[in-house]
């Protein structure tokens, strides 16, 4: 079983569209895991049916029982996060600020504070419209995008891949360099970057490459909107060569991406234009990389 992760570093490079197209092309061979749980968009292209849903609990929140509170202010004096607010001599918890550390609970002389686990999201196992199983999640507003939810989504995807005898798990990874990406990358066999030849595209690719290096996973790159700026394109290609990132393909600026999205379709199912052709070839290449070369660990 091979795990292929698609990430972008920077948003807006067309990662989800590329991811959607690969899901469409890989159809029967794969299980899809949407690990971009903070801004999950893939479901809009793949029409999952939300067969099974499960609540996701994470982090704690302090709850104050006013009947037990003697207004001593011990909690206020220890909290580092402005989570306790006092108004005319009474105290209350500001949920938005509470970090869940539990210090207040420990110092409260009357046990007026309890820590409660929060339901912060849901995760689903679906059958997608392309036919393959899709595991995805929705994180509630203001929740922390922890690596555990990503791990849970991936784990479920692995279970299904095994059960259905699928060879590939295709993972949509989140932007940034934090905990969620780390979790998406752990155990992966191949990373596909989707970037663009712009100053920010290159800048973010460099940052995320540094992270991927720590995992010793092989990687390749799809350059979207490759005709935006030729100087940046040169710079990008030089960087990739130096960093040992394979150049999978380049796609010229193409508004068909949006046209397909408007119809809720992946690019390759929408039309057979030049961008679709590039994606079809790219997917073949990526499958080969993942299948024949194995993981370099």
């Amino acid at each position, binding site marked *: 079983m091979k795990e292929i992760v698609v990430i972008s570093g920077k948003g*807006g490079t067309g990662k989800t569209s590329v991811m959607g197209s690969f899901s469409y092309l890989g159809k029967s061979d794969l299980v899809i895991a949407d690990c971009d749980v903070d801004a999950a968009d893939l479901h809009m292209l793949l029409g999952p049916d939300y067969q099974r849903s499960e609540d996701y609990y994470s982090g704690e929140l302090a709850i104050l029982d006013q009947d037990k509170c003697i207004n001593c202010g011990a909690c206020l004096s220890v909290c580092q996060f402005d989570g306790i607010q006092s108004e005319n001599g009474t105290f209350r918890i500001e949920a938005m600020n509470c970090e869940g*550390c539990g210090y207040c609970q420990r110092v409260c002389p009357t046990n007026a504070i309890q820590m409660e686990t929060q339901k912060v999201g849901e995760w689903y196992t679906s059958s997608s419209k392309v036919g393959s199983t899709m595991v995805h999640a929705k994180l509630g507003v203001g929740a922390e995008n922890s690596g555990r939810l990503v791990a849970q989504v991936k784990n479920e995807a692995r279970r299904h891949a095994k059960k259905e005898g699928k060879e590939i798990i295709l993972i949509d990874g989140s932007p940034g360099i934090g905990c969620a990406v780390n979790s998406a990358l752990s155990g992966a066999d191949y990373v596909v970057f989707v970037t663009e030849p712009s100053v920010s595209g290159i800048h973010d690719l460099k940052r995320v490459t540094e992270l991927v290096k720590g995992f010793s996973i092989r990687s390749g790159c799809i350059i979207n909107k490759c005709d935006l700026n030729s100087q940046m394109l040169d710079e990008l290609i030089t960087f990739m060569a130096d960093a040992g990132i394979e150049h999978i393909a380049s796609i010229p600026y193409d508004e068909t991406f949006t046209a397909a999205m408007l119809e809720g379709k992946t690019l390759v199912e929408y039309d057979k234009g030049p961008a679709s052709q590039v994606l079809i070839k790219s997917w073949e290449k990526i499958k080969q990389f993942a299948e024949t070369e194995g993981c370099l660990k």
Partner: protein
Amino acid sequence: MKIAIASGKGGTGKTTLATSLSSHLSETQDVVLVDLDVEEPNSRLFIRGDQTHSQSICKQVPEWTGDCSLCGQCQEICNFNAVIKVGTQIMLFPELCHSCRACSELCPESALPLKPRKIGMLNQIQAGNLIFVESRLEIGEQQAVPLISQTKDYIDNHFDESYIIIYDSPPGTSCPVIEASKDADFVILVTEPTPFGLYDLKLAVEVMRKMKKDFGVVVNRDGLGNNDVLDYCDMETIPVLARISNDRRIAELYAAGELIFSTIPEFKEQLLLLERSLELSTVVDPV
């Protein structure tokens, strides 16, 4: 006046708007642009000027003195698994620590004093009349929030109310965004007129309402997709402050790291419109 520029997801033109708006305003007023997207700080790529200040940003994390009774209370106290007792050692994982101070202050042997640990760099740049401040999270650090909050403290300590302060917020709807827009007087949500844009906008609106913030929407790449975003704003009575048309030249200038308003008049027009609706312009409307 503090304005945060945010979006439900990345790549909608948040940085383009933040850098353009602040550069343009700085022609007539005192403006500080602050890049709070500390995981991927990009605004700097569009700002040309001289670095005037640079400092490390640290958070306070406990360090074990090596001399204690091994009671193990610290492991039990820490809600984030940042401290554990293994054999005859206390081990700390600083990147997991939220700096709540509990283990340190409650340790019966005072064996866990707090020590500063570098989590990022703050840089200040003077670009003409514009002051630009950014913070960059160290690679390997997992928490953006403490860096964001300390960067805001730096701003509060150095710039008074006579400045217009513009925050370029991180994307998404999780803790970093909330930290970044918490004390803003107004939030601008940038979106695109596509199904993805609409979906992410709805999430961002949910966050803003939960935080009871004043906010408005700027539609970027207007004309690209459909009218659903505008219809949604209309229905929810969310003000649409400006509509920046879908223009390939904008993407090209952005790619090269250029500021856009000096080259594209239509873009500047929308900026002026935005400034007027935020009551930021000092110039009297000529029309």
